[in-house]
Protein backbone atom coordinates (compact mmCIF):
# COMPACT_ATOMS: atom_id res chain seq x y z
CA UNK A 1 0.00 0.00 0.00
CA UNK A 2 1.17 3.49 -0.75
CA UNK A 3 1.81 5.76 2.14
CA UNK A 4 -1.48 7.44 2.80
CA UNK A 5 -0.26 9.83 5.42
CA UNK A 6 -0.86 12.38 2.76
CA UNK A 7 -3.73 14.51 1.73
CA UNK A 8 -4.82 14.21 -1.83
CA UNK A 9 -5.98 17.80 -2.44
CA UNK A 10 -2.54 19.11 -1.65
CA UNK A 11 -0.87 16.70 -4.00
CA UNK A 12 -2.82 16.88 -7.14
CA UNK A 13 -4.33 19.41 -9.42
CA UNK A 14 -8.00 19.99 -8.94
CA UNK A 15 -8.81 20.34 -12.59
CA UNK A 16 -10.33 17.31 -14.27
CA UNK A 17 -9.47 16.69 -17.89
CA UNK A 18 -11.77 13.70 -18.13
CA UNK A 19 -15.19 14.97 -17.16
CA UNK A 20 -17.95 12.98 -15.48
CA UNK A 21 -20.98 11.99 -17.49
CA UNK A 22 -19.02 9.25 -19.27
CA UNK A 23 -20.75 5.92 -19.82
CA UNK A 24 -18.15 3.56 -18.33
CA UNK A 25 -19.46 0.63 -16.32
CA UNK A 26 -20.08 1.04 -12.61
CA UNK A 27 -16.73 0.67 -10.86
CA UNK A 28 -14.61 0.93 -14.00
CA UNK A 29 -10.97 1.19 -12.96
CA UNK A 30 -9.94 1.90 -16.53
CA UNK A 31 -11.97 5.13 -16.60
CA UNK A 32 -10.31 5.86 -13.27
CA UNK A 33 -6.86 5.19 -14.68
CA UNK A 34 -7.56 7.46 -17.63
CA UNK A 35 -8.78 10.21 -15.31
CA UNK A 36 -5.69 9.91 -13.11
CA UNK A 37 -3.40 9.89 -16.11
CA UNK A 38 -4.69 13.09 -17.60
CA UNK A 39 -5.12 14.80 -14.29
CA UNK A 40 -1.41 14.27 -13.85
CA UNK A 41 -0.48 15.69 -17.24
CA UNK A 42 -2.31 18.98 -17.17
CA UNK A 43 -3.38 21.01 -20.14
CA UNK A 44 -0.61 20.94 -22.75
CA UNK A 45 -1.49 17.54 -24.08
CA UNK A 46 -2.94 16.06 -27.25
CA UNK A 47 -4.66 12.71 -26.76
CA UNK A 48 -4.85 10.04 -29.45
CA UNK A 49 -7.28 7.28 -28.53
CA UNK A 50 -7.54 3.85 -30.10
CA UNK A 51 -10.98 2.35 -30.54
CA UNK A 52 -12.10 0.61 -27.37
CA UNK A 53 -14.11 1.06 -24.22
CA UNK A 54 -12.62 4.44 -23.36
CA UNK A 55 -13.35 5.89 -26.76
CA UNK A 56 -16.91 4.60 -26.76
CA UNK A 57 -17.86 5.58 -23.24
CA UNK A 58 -16.32 9.04 -23.31
CA UNK A 59 -17.42 10.45 -26.65
CA UNK A 60 -20.92 9.47 -27.74
CA UNK A 61 -21.93 12.36 -30.00
CA UNK A 62 -22.79 15.07 -29.14
CA UNK A 63 -21.04 14.64 -25.77
CA UNK A 64 -17.43 14.35 -24.81
CA UNK A 65 -15.77 13.79 -21.48
CA UNK A 66 -12.53 15.16 -22.86
CA UNK A 67 -11.36 18.61 -21.85
CA UNK A 68 -8.17 18.13 -23.86
CA UNK A 69 -7.66 18.09 -27.63
CA UNK A 70 -8.50 14.51 -28.45
CA UNK A 71 -8.63 12.42 -31.60
CA UNK A 72 -9.84 8.94 -32.31
CA UNK A 73 -9.68 7.34 -35.73
CA UNK A 74 -9.38 3.55 -35.62
CA UNK A 75 -8.54 0.54 -33.51
CA UNK A 76 -4.98 -0.42 -34.43
CA UNK A 77 -3.41 2.88 -35.36
CA UNK A 78 -3.21 5.14 -32.31
CA UNK A 79 0.60 5.06 -32.34
CA UNK A 80 0.64 5.95 -36.04
CA UNK A 81 -1.82 8.81 -35.62
CA UNK A 82 0.26 10.01 -32.70
CA UNK A 83 3.30 9.87 -34.99
CA UNK A 84 1.53 12.20 -37.38
CA UNK A 85 0.53 14.53 -34.56
CA UNK A 86 4.10 14.57 -33.26
CA UNK A 87 5.72 15.10 -36.66
CA UNK A 88 3.08 17.61 -37.70
CA UNK A 89 3.58 19.68 -34.55
CA UNK A 90 7.37 19.55 -34.95
CA UNK A 91 7.12 20.73 -38.57
CA UNK A 92 4.74 23.57 -37.71
CA UNK A 93 6.88 24.73 -34.80
CA UNK A 94 9.99 24.59 -36.98
CA UNK A 95 8.27 26.64 -39.63
CA UNK A 96 7.06 29.20 -37.08
CA UNK A 97 3.40 28.39 -37.49
CA UNK A 98 2.87 27.11 -33.94
CA UNK A 99 4.35 28.52 -30.75
CA UNK A 100 7.39 26.61 -29.53
CA UNK A 101 5.93 25.11 -26.41
CA UNK A 102 6.11 21.57 -25.15
CA UNK A 103 2.95 19.69 -25.97
CA UNK A 104 2.85 16.08 -24.84
CA UNK A 105 1.43 13.71 -27.38
CA UNK A 106 -0.20 10.80 -25.55
CA UNK A 107 -1.62 7.78 -27.32
CA UNK A 108 -3.89 5.49 -25.35
CA UNK A 109 -5.41 2.13 -26.08
CA UNK A 110 -6.62 -1.03 -24.45
CA UNK A 111 -4.77 -4.33 -24.35
CA UNK A 112 -6.30 -5.47 -27.63
CA UNK A 113 -5.36 -2.24 -29.39
CA UNK A 114 -1.89 -2.51 -27.92
CA UNK A 115 -0.63 -6.05 -27.67
CA UNK A 116 -2.72 -7.49 -30.51
CA UNK A 117 -4.00 -5.46 -33.43
CA UNK A 118 -1.95 -2.32 -32.89
CA UNK A 119 1.38 -3.93 -31.99
CA UNK A 120 2.94 -3.25 -35.38
CA UNK A 121 2.07 0.44 -35.36
CA UNK A 122 3.41 0.78 -31.81
CA UNK A 123 6.64 -1.00 -32.66
CA UNK A 124 7.03 1.26 -35.70
CA UNK A 125 6.47 4.43 -33.72
CA UNK A 126 8.83 3.36 -30.91
CA UNK A 127 11.53 2.36 -33.37
CA UNK A 128 11.22 5.66 -35.27
CA UNK A 129 11.76 7.44 -31.96
CA UNK A 130 8.59 9.48 -32.19
CA UNK A 131 8.33 11.87 -29.30
CA UNK A 132 5.24 10.56 -27.57
CA UNK A 133 3.91 8.57 -24.64
CA UNK A 134 1.88 5.45 -25.23
CA UNK A 135 -0.29 4.29 -22.38
CA UNK A 136 -1.91 0.88 -22.52
CA UNK A 137 -4.93 0.51 -20.25
CA UNK A 138 -4.91 -3.23 -19.88
CA UNK A 139 -8.13 -4.85 -18.69
CA UNK A 140 -6.97 -8.20 -19.99
CA UNK A 141 -9.59 -8.90 -22.66
CA UNK A 142 -11.72 -7.32 -25.38
CA UNK A 143 -14.19 -5.82 -22.93
CA UNK A 144 -15.68 -3.38 -25.42
CA UNK A 145 -17.01 -6.20 -27.56
CA UNK A 146 -17.95 -8.51 -24.71
CA UNK A 147 -14.99 -10.05 -22.86
CA UNK A 148 -13.24 -11.93 -25.65
CA UNK A 149 -9.73 -13.16 -24.96
CA UNK A 150 -6.69 -11.15 -26.04
CA UNK A 151 -2.99 -11.91 -25.86
CA UNK A 152 -3.03 -9.99 -22.58
CA UNK A 153 -5.61 -12.27 -20.98
CA UNK A 154 -3.97 -14.18 -18.12
CA UNK A 155 -3.56 -17.93 -18.02
CA UNK A 156 -6.62 -19.65 -16.66
CA UNK A 157 -9.04 -16.75 -17.09
CA UNK A 158 -12.40 -17.64 -18.58
CA UNK A 159 -13.51 -15.33 -21.39
CA UNK A 160 -16.22 -15.55 -24.01
CA UNK A 161 -13.82 -16.82 -26.67
CA UNK A 162 -11.63 -18.83 -24.34
CA UNK A 163 -14.31 -20.13 -22.01
CA UNK A 164 -13.63 -22.60 -19.24
CA UNK A 165 -15.25 -25.96 -19.86
CA UNK A 166 -14.82 -29.64 -19.29
CA UNK A 167 -11.89 -29.67 -21.66
CA UNK A 168 -10.43 -26.25 -21.06
CA UNK A 169 -9.26 -24.08 -18.22
CA UNK A 170 -10.15 -21.01 -20.27
CA UNK A 171 -7.14 -19.05 -21.51
CA UNK A 172 -4.40 -21.61 -22.11
CA UNK A 173 -1.59 -19.19 -22.95
CA UNK A 174 0.41 -16.90 -20.70
CA UNK A 175 -0.04 -13.17 -20.80
CA UNK A 176 2.07 -11.46 -23.43
CA UNK A 177 4.86 -9.40 -21.89
CA UNK A 178 3.97 -6.13 -23.56
CA UNK A 179 6.13 -3.88 -21.34
CA UNK A 180 9.01 -6.24 -22.12
CA UNK A 181 8.35 -5.85 -25.82
CA UNK A 182 8.28 -2.08 -25.45
CA UNK A 183 11.52 -2.18 -23.45
CA UNK A 184 13.15 -4.31 -26.13
CA UNK A 185 12.95 -1.26 -28.39
CA UNK A 186 15.49 0.32 -26.04
CA UNK A 187 13.35 3.40 -25.58
CA UNK A 188 14.14 5.82 -22.75
CA UNK A 189 11.19 5.05 -20.53
CA UNK A 190 8.95 2.06 -19.88
CA UNK A 191 6.84 1.51 -16.79
CA UNK A 192 3.97 -0.48 -15.36
CA UNK A 193 1.31 1.15 -13.23
CA UNK A 194 -2.07 0.59 -11.65
CA UNK A 195 -4.70 3.13 -10.57
CA UNK A 196 -4.79 1.44 -7.15
CA UNK A 197 -1.45 3.23 -6.70
CA UNK A 198 -2.45 6.67 -8.00
CA UNK A 199 0.64 8.62 -7.03
CA UNK A 200 2.95 6.03 -8.50
CA UNK A 201 0.86 6.09 -11.67
CA UNK A 202 0.81 9.84 -11.93
CA UNK A 203 4.55 10.15 -11.31
CA UNK A 204 5.24 7.68 -14.07
CA UNK A 205 2.87 9.30 -16.50
CA UNK A 206 4.50 12.69 -15.96
CA UNK A 207 7.94 11.17 -16.36
CA UNK A 208 6.92 9.38 -19.52
CA UNK A 209 5.35 12.43 -21.07
CA UNK A 210 8.34 14.62 -20.34
CA UNK A 211 10.85 12.12 -21.64
CA UNK A 212 12.13 13.24 -25.04
CA UNK A 213 11.50 10.40 -27.44
CA UNK A 214 9.13 7.49 -27.01
CA UNK A 215 7.82 6.24 -23.67
CA UNK A 216 5.50 3.38 -22.82
CA UNK A 217 3.39 2.76 -19.74
CA UNK A 218 1.36 -0.36 -19.16
CA UNK A 219 -1.51 0.18 -16.74
CA UNK A 220 -3.37 -2.73 -15.22
CA UNK A 221 -6.99 -1.61 -15.20
CA UNK A 222 -9.40 -3.75 -13.26
CA UNK A 223 -12.65 -4.41 -15.12
CA UNK A 224 -15.30 -5.58 -12.64
CA UNK A 225 -17.61 -6.52 -15.51
CA UNK A 226 -15.13 -8.68 -17.38
CA UNK A 227 -13.28 -10.03 -14.37
CA UNK A 228 -16.52 -10.73 -12.58
CA UNK A 229 -15.71 -9.08 -9.31
CA UNK A 230 -17.68 -6.67 -7.17
CA UNK A 231 -17.39 -3.07 -8.47
CA UNK A 232 -16.36 -1.74 -5.07
CA UNK A 233 -13.42 -4.14 -5.08
CA UNK A 234 -11.84 -2.65 -8.22
CA UNK A 235 -9.11 -0.84 -6.28
CA UNK A 236 -8.50 -3.73 -3.95
CA UNK A 237 -8.15 -6.24 -6.75
CA UNK A 238 -5.60 -3.99 -8.45
CA UNK A 239 -3.69 -3.72 -5.21
CA UNK A 240 -3.74 -7.49 -4.81
CA UNK A 241 -2.36 -7.90 -8.32
CA UNK A 242 0.66 -5.96 -7.14
CA UNK A 243 0.89 -7.51 -3.68
CA UNK A 244 0.79 -11.03 -5.06
CA UNK A 245 3.40 -10.27 -7.70
CA UNK A 246 0.97 -10.95 -10.53
CA UNK A 247 1.52 -7.41 -11.78
CA UNK A 248 4.70 -5.89 -10.37
CA UNK A 249 5.08 -2.13 -10.55
CA UNK A 250 8.40 -1.17 -12.05
CA UNK A 251 10.01 1.20 -14.41
CA UNK A 252 12.75 0.87 -16.98
CA UNK A 253 14.60 4.12 -17.35
CA UNK A 254 17.20 4.05 -20.10
CA UNK A 255 17.36 0.30 -19.75
CA UNK A 256 17.66 0.29 -15.92
CA UNK A 257 14.94 -1.71 -14.24
CA UNK A 258 13.63 -0.54 -10.89
CA UNK A 259 10.73 -1.67 -8.72
CA UNK A 260 8.73 1.36 -7.68
CA UNK A 261 6.52 -0.56 -5.29
CA UNK A 262 8.62 -3.21 -3.63
CA UNK A 263 6.72 -6.11 -2.11
CA UNK A 264 9.15 -7.86 0.24
CA UNK A 265 6.80 -10.73 0.98
CA UNK A 266 4.43 -11.64 -1.85
CA UNK A 267 0.94 -12.72 -0.92
CA UNK A 268 -0.34 -15.99 -2.40
CA UNK A 269 -1.89 -15.52 -5.84
CA UNK A 270 -5.00 -17.23 -4.57
CA UNK A 271 -5.81 -14.02 -2.63
CA UNK A 272 -6.03 -12.25 -5.98
CA UNK A 273 -7.70 -15.01 -8.00
CA UNK A 274 -10.45 -15.83 -5.53
CA UNK A 275 -12.07 -12.40 -5.79
CA UNK A 276 -12.66 -12.82 -9.51
CA UNK A 277 -15.32 -14.94 -11.16
CA UNK A 278 -13.16 -15.42 -14.25
CA UNK A 279 -10.83 -17.67 -12.18
CA UNK A 280 -13.52 -19.38 -10.11
CA UNK A 281 -13.29 -22.67 -12.04
CA UNK A 282 -9.56 -23.16 -11.51
CA UNK A 283 -8.38 -26.35 -9.87
CA UNK A 284 -5.83 -26.28 -7.09
CA UNK A 285 -3.36 -27.68 -9.56
CA UNK A 286 -3.82 -24.79 -11.99
CA UNK A 287 -3.60 -22.27 -9.19
CA UNK A 288 -0.30 -23.84 -8.21
CA UNK A 289 0.87 -23.61 -11.80
CA UNK A 290 0.04 -19.92 -11.80
CA UNK A 291 1.71 -19.45 -8.43
CA UNK A 292 4.91 -21.08 -9.70
CA UNK A 293 4.98 -18.96 -12.77
CA UNK A 294 4.33 -15.72 -10.88
CA UNK A 295 7.00 -16.53 -8.28
CA UNK A 296 9.50 -17.37 -10.98
CA UNK A 297 8.78 -14.25 -13.03
CA UNK A 298 8.97 -12.05 -9.98
CA UNK A 299 12.26 -13.60 -8.93
CA UNK A 300 13.57 -13.08 -12.46
CA UNK A 301 12.60 -9.43 -12.35
CA UNK A 302 14.29 -8.94 -8.99
CA UNK A 303 17.36 -10.73 -10.21
CA UNK A 304 17.56 -8.49 -13.22
CA UNK A 305 17.30 -5.43 -10.99
CA UNK A 306 19.94 -6.66 -8.56
CA UNK A 307 22.23 -7.56 -11.39
CA UNK A 308 21.98 -4.04 -12.78
CA UNK A 309 22.53 -2.51 -9.35
CA UNK A 310 25.70 -4.58 -9.04
CA UNK A 311 26.93 -3.29 -12.36
CA UNK A 312 26.28 0.24 -11.14
CA UNK A 313 28.47 -0.31 -8.11
Amino acid sequence: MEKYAVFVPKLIKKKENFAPGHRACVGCAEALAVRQTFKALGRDVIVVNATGCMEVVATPLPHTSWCLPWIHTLFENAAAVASGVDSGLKALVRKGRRPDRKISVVAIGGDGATSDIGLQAISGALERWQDFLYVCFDNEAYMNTGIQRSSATPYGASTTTAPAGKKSIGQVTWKKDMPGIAAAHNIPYVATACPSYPFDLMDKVRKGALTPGPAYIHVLSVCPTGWRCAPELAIKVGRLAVETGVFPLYEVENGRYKLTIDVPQLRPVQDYLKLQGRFRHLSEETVKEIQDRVSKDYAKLKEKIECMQKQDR
Partner: protein
Amino acid sequence: MTESEGKPTWQQIEIGAIITEPGSARQYQTGDWRTQRPTYVHERCIKCGLCSIYCPEGCIEPNEEGYFEADLFYCKGCGICARECWTKAINMVEEE
Protein backbone atom coordinates in the same frame (compact mmCIF):
# COMPACT_ATOMS: atom_id res chain seq x y z
CA MET B 1 -42.55 15.75 -28.47
CA THR B 2 -40.94 14.09 -31.45
CA GLU B 3 -38.03 11.78 -31.11
CA SER B 4 -35.71 14.01 -33.11
CA GLU B 5 -36.38 17.13 -31.11
CA GLY B 6 -33.24 18.83 -29.95
CA LYS B 7 -31.02 16.66 -32.14
CA PRO B 8 -29.01 18.26 -34.91
CA THR B 9 -30.10 18.27 -38.53
CA TRP B 10 -27.48 17.37 -41.11
CA GLN B 11 -26.94 21.06 -41.80
CA GLN B 12 -26.03 21.58 -38.16
CA ILE B 13 -23.33 18.92 -38.06
CA GLU B 14 -19.93 20.44 -37.31
CA ILE B 15 -17.07 19.75 -39.75
CA GLY B 16 -16.25 16.06 -39.40
CA ALA B 17 -18.70 15.87 -36.49
CA ILE B 18 -16.11 17.51 -34.28
CA ILE B 19 -17.27 18.34 -30.74
CA THR B 20 -16.19 21.83 -29.85
CA GLU B 21 -17.40 22.05 -26.27
CA PRO B 22 -14.83 20.45 -23.95
CA GLY B 23 -16.26 18.17 -21.29
CA SER B 24 -19.81 18.49 -22.60
CA ALA B 25 -20.55 15.06 -21.14
CA ARG B 26 -21.15 16.96 -17.89
CA GLN B 27 -24.63 17.55 -19.24
CA TYR B 28 -25.27 13.84 -19.15
CA GLN B 29 -26.71 12.37 -16.01
CA THR B 30 -25.23 9.04 -14.97
CA GLY B 31 -26.61 9.29 -11.47
CA ASP B 32 -29.75 7.46 -12.50
CA TRP B 33 -27.68 4.29 -13.00
CA ARG B 34 -27.29 4.10 -9.26
CA THR B 35 -28.83 1.39 -7.10
CA GLN B 36 -26.99 2.42 -3.94
CA ARG B 37 -25.62 5.73 -2.83
CA PRO B 38 -22.92 6.95 -0.51
CA THR B 39 -23.79 8.50 2.81
CA TYR B 40 -21.27 10.31 4.98
CA VAL B 41 -20.29 10.25 8.64
CA HIS B 42 -18.55 13.60 8.83
CA GLU B 43 -17.23 12.93 12.36
CA ARG B 44 -15.05 10.20 10.88
CA CYS B 45 -13.96 12.13 7.78
CA ILE B 46 -10.43 13.49 8.00
CA LYS B 47 -10.78 15.28 4.63
CA CYS B 48 -7.92 13.29 3.16
CA GLY B 49 -9.62 13.15 -0.24
CA LEU B 50 -8.58 9.60 -0.96
CA CYS B 51 -12.14 8.84 -2.07
CA SER B 52 -11.86 11.53 -4.71
CA ILE B 53 -8.72 10.10 -6.25
CA TYR B 54 -10.30 6.65 -6.51
CA CYS B 55 -13.63 7.73 -7.96
CA PRO B 56 -13.97 6.43 -11.54
CA GLU B 57 -16.39 9.24 -12.31
CA GLY B 58 -14.28 12.01 -10.86
CA CYS B 59 -17.39 13.37 -9.23
CA ILE B 60 -16.18 13.64 -5.62
CA GLU B 61 -15.23 17.10 -4.42
CA PRO B 62 -15.01 18.86 -1.07
CA ASN B 63 -18.15 20.71 -0.06
CA GLU B 64 -18.14 24.17 1.51
CA GLU B 65 -16.97 22.74 4.82
CA GLY B 66 -14.22 20.72 3.20
CA TYR B 67 -15.91 17.33 3.49
CA PHE B 68 -15.61 15.22 0.38
CA GLU B 69 -18.92 14.26 -1.18
CA ALA B 70 -20.01 12.70 -4.44
CA ASP B 71 -22.10 14.66 -6.91
CA LEU B 72 -25.18 12.49 -7.14
CA PHE B 73 -25.92 13.78 -10.63
CA TYR B 74 -23.02 11.59 -11.79
CA CYS B 75 -22.37 9.09 -8.98
CA LYS B 76 -23.12 5.58 -10.31
CA GLY B 77 -22.96 4.11 -6.83
CA CYS B 78 -20.04 1.77 -7.40
CA GLY B 79 -19.07 1.86 -3.75
CA ILE B 80 -15.33 2.19 -4.31
CA CYS B 81 -15.18 5.31 -2.13
CA ALA B 82 -16.85 3.52 0.77
CA ARG B 83 -14.62 0.48 0.33
CA GLU B 84 -11.41 2.51 0.16
CA CYS B 85 -12.18 5.04 2.89
CA TRP B 86 -9.78 4.02 5.64
CA THR B 87 -11.64 5.88 8.38
CA LYS B 88 -14.93 4.28 7.35
CA ALA B 89 -16.63 7.64 6.92
CA ILE B 90 -18.69 6.49 3.94
CA ASN B 91 -21.51 3.97 3.91
CA MET B 92 -23.46 2.75 0.92
CA VAL B 93 -27.22 2.56 1.32
CA GLU B 94 -29.82 1.20 -1.07
CA GLU B 95 -31.56 3.74 -3.26
CA GLU B 96 -35.26 3.88 -2.61
